[in-house]
């Protein structure tokens, strides 16, 4: 039952504890600094066999840093990690894999030009005579793996043709294909829909039954209460508490994560008879969505709910001019919006928080300041020159307003924690003073405290007479912020329901 391949125990605790009671992994006092700034001060975790252990904490709490250390992707400054009582210090991911530890990292890293099967078996391709890759065998193995997991992804497809959710599923399958003892999942569900989450959880239950253990990170607390057995909370790089999930409630967990109690946002109703801000008239785009007409009034938040692949993202991107529609028109404040031109859309008063911050939201290698200023440069520049003072002031204001946690506005965005990166995207969009804010999954990867801040912000933004168009796969989120909810199904707008009276059950029924 112990599948630690190749690891001879060197230091073993002599205590007479049975193998079953001994924790699989014990980490203590793990610390790590970047350029003298501590990211993790005291990381602790005790992982038992056959459990799902939720690692909770706000953005920048040090979860990813801790997990990357366990996996050997980063090297710790201090602390100890023991697996099955044996002190370990992995130098690389390959090292960790040999010892039965595998990870699905927060930032995905597919090879876009390779097929699904090639990605899954990258670096350990089955070979004929040790030389030639045995493609049929590889494809069969990949197919069996995906079928076992009930993941609906074609094994022969190239990664670049897959949706973000499918890429995420492939990465999950890849990690699970190692049949490791310890599976680390750093926000595996941030990009996938409720349906896929359900499938994933079934797979996790089977892994658990096998005696393996899972470290699970997610900002979606509903998921944690559904799948986790135990939990550990980090805050500001420190261990705060741990215990059995059955012994606490949601409020307690949120308070531990955030460090203080948070209020959920109350939403008021927008004024009756407010003028129409955005009007979409029978908009279509090829096979993605057809004949969609919808309006957003000044002061209103319109939520768009639907399953993955129901055309929601395409719809938003078409309104914002990233794609040109095949038919139909968009009007903002009564004026027709030029199709297929994001620049003009921004000038007319739109802004968009896009779905995948790494792909379309941020220039990762550029600084926070440069990213925040990017959209508004033209608006603020005089005769082509950047107004540096104004820019610095605006960046500073935005970083404070959105509580972006970073050493300085000059550090590269890629060094920020996922949630802080998302806040930078928000800051960039708001700096252009938009009247209509288009958000595609605006709280992806954002912690509970910041989520409520964003909800409050969106409501407040609308209350000032602006409009918000928001897509989310999370029903509770849509219900919490929307005045009206448009339900998409297979590229069509089926229903528009009142956001103040609908329940979660009604919503999911309408969408499926």
């Amino acid at each position, binding site marked *: 039952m112990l599948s630690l391949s190749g690891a001879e125990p060197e230091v073993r605790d002599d205590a007479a504890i049975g193998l079953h009671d001994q924790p699989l992994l014990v980490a203590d006092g793990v610390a790590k600094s970047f*350029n*003298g*700034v*501590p990211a993790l001060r005291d990381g602790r975790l005790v992982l038992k066999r056959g459990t799902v252990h939720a690692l909770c904490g706000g953005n920048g709490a040090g979860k990813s840093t801790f997990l990357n250390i366990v996996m050997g992707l980063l090297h710790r400054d201090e602390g100890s990690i023991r697996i099955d009582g044996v002190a370990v210090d992995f130098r690389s991911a390959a090292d960790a894999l040999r010892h039965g530890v595998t990870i699905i990292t927060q930032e995905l890293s597919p090879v876009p030009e390779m097929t699904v099967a090639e990605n899954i078996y990258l670096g350990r391709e089955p070979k004929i005579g040790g030389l030639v890759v045995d493609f049929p065998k590889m494809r069969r193995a990949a197919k069996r793996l995906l079928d076992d997991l009930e993941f609906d992804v074609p094994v022969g497809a190239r990664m670049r043709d897959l949706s973000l959710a499918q890429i995420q599923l492939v990465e999950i399958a890849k990690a699970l294909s190692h049949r490791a003892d310890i599976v680390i999942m750093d926000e595996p569900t941030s990009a996938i829909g409720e349906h896929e989450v359900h499938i994933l959880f079934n797979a996790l239950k089977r892994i658990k039954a096998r005696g393996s253990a899972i470290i699970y990170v997610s900002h979606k607390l509903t998921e944690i209460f559904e799948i986790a057995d135990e939990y550990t909370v980090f805050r500001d790089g420190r261990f705060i508490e741990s215990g059995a999930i059955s012994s606490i409630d949601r409020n307690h967990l949120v308070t531990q994560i955030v460090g203080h109690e948070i209020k959920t946002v109350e939403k008021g109703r927008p004024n009756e008879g407010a003028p129409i801000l955005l009007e979409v008239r029978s908009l279509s785009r090829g096979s993605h969505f057809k004949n969609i007409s919808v309006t957003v009034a000044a002061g209103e938040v319109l939520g768009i709910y639907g399953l993955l692949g129901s055309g929601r993202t395409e719809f938003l991107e078409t309104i*914002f001019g*990233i794609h040109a529609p095949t038919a139909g028109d968009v009007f903002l404040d009564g004026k027709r919006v030029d199709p297929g031109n*994001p*620049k003009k*859309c*921004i*000038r007319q008063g739109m802004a*968009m928080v*896009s779905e995948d911050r790494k*792909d*379309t*939201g*941020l*220039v*990762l*290698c*550029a600084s926070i300041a*440069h990213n925040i*200023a*990017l*959209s508004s*440069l*033209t608006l603020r*520049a005089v005769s*082509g*020159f*950047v107004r*540096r003072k104004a820019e610095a002031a605006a960046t500073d204001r935005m970083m404070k307003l959105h509580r972006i946690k970073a*050493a*300085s506005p*000059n*550090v590269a965005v890629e060094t920020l924690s996922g949630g802080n990166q998302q806040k930078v995207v928000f800051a*960039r969009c708001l700096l*252009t003073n938009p009247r209509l804010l288009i958000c595609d999954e605006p709280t992806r990867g954002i912690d509970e405290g910041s989520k409520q801040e964003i909800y409050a912000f969106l409501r407040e933004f609308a209350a000032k007479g602006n409009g918000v168009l928001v897509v989310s796969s999370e029903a509770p989120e849509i219900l919490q912020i929307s005045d009206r909810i448009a339900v998409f199904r297979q590229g069509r707008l089926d229903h528009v329901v009142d956001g103040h009276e609908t329940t979660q059950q009604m919503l999911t029924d309408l969408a499926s």
Partner: protein
Amino acid sequence: MVANVISNVATGARSKSIAAIGPYLKSFSIVIVFVVISAFFAVANEYFMTWLNWVNLLRQSSINGVLAIGVTFVILTRGIDLSVGSVMALAGMIAASLVTSTNQHFVLWAVLAGLGTGALLGLLNGVIVTTFNVPPFVATLGMLSMARGLTLIFSDGRPVPNLSESFRWIGGGSVAGVPVPVLILFLVFATGWVVLSYTTFGRYVYAVGGNDKAAKTSGISTRTVIASTYVISGLLAGLAGLVLTSRTTAALPQAGIGYELDAIAAVVIGGTSLAGGRGSLVGTLFGALIIGTINNGMDLMGVSSYYQQLLKGAIIVVAVMLDQFRK
């Protein structure tokens, strides 16, 4: 509590200073490489450190420097421009044809024709890359051959000699003891540096190279930005062509062969990433100076040109290796 606050303040201050020094440190390391190489040649040859030699060295580096500055813009957007050597030959040839003894036009027309040729070919590169989605490597490789072909057709494979006195001033003249090509280099550098650091266009160049999709979502016309960098590169190749032609006092159809490689080498030694989005003109300038110093120093030491090739290649690779190592 108090201790906590103090430690926060301390780490905050330290990280701020680190973040502030970071970029300078980066351009500083290339300066160190430059100083080390210069010191080596200074010890090896007493003539190296003379004023006269430095003026000479700067003049020798000026053409490559101007080319490299243009190529930096392109590389920052994750592109490449292989055509600069041929473009400079064509620009020089067309300009020269207007200022021969049998065809005495204004020098101004010749200069404008040379620059215009460069900009036009650059624009063509830019349009082919952005509108027709041809990879930059292929598009500019094609231009490398086409521009050379045009130069040979235009000149019928013969040099154009006997250029007018005033035209020869561009490459051979000097102002207050400083050679005109060196002045041109510093003028181009200063302008380029201001454009990259202080204008919105400069910011867009970095953004497009860092992530073109995000730049587009942010409302930037990525095509215009990318095409503009090729125009800049072509324009500066035209300028370099004028300087070269003027200095050799004749337009040669085979001028500038292989110059694109030295230009790209200068950019890369200067720390600009071929993956786009990172780099600076300060680095490029020193990159060009390092290459110039190596050439000049080895000439002085009487190293055969065969060995020069070998050593130069090795130094380029080692310089970039050190840069990677530091990261």
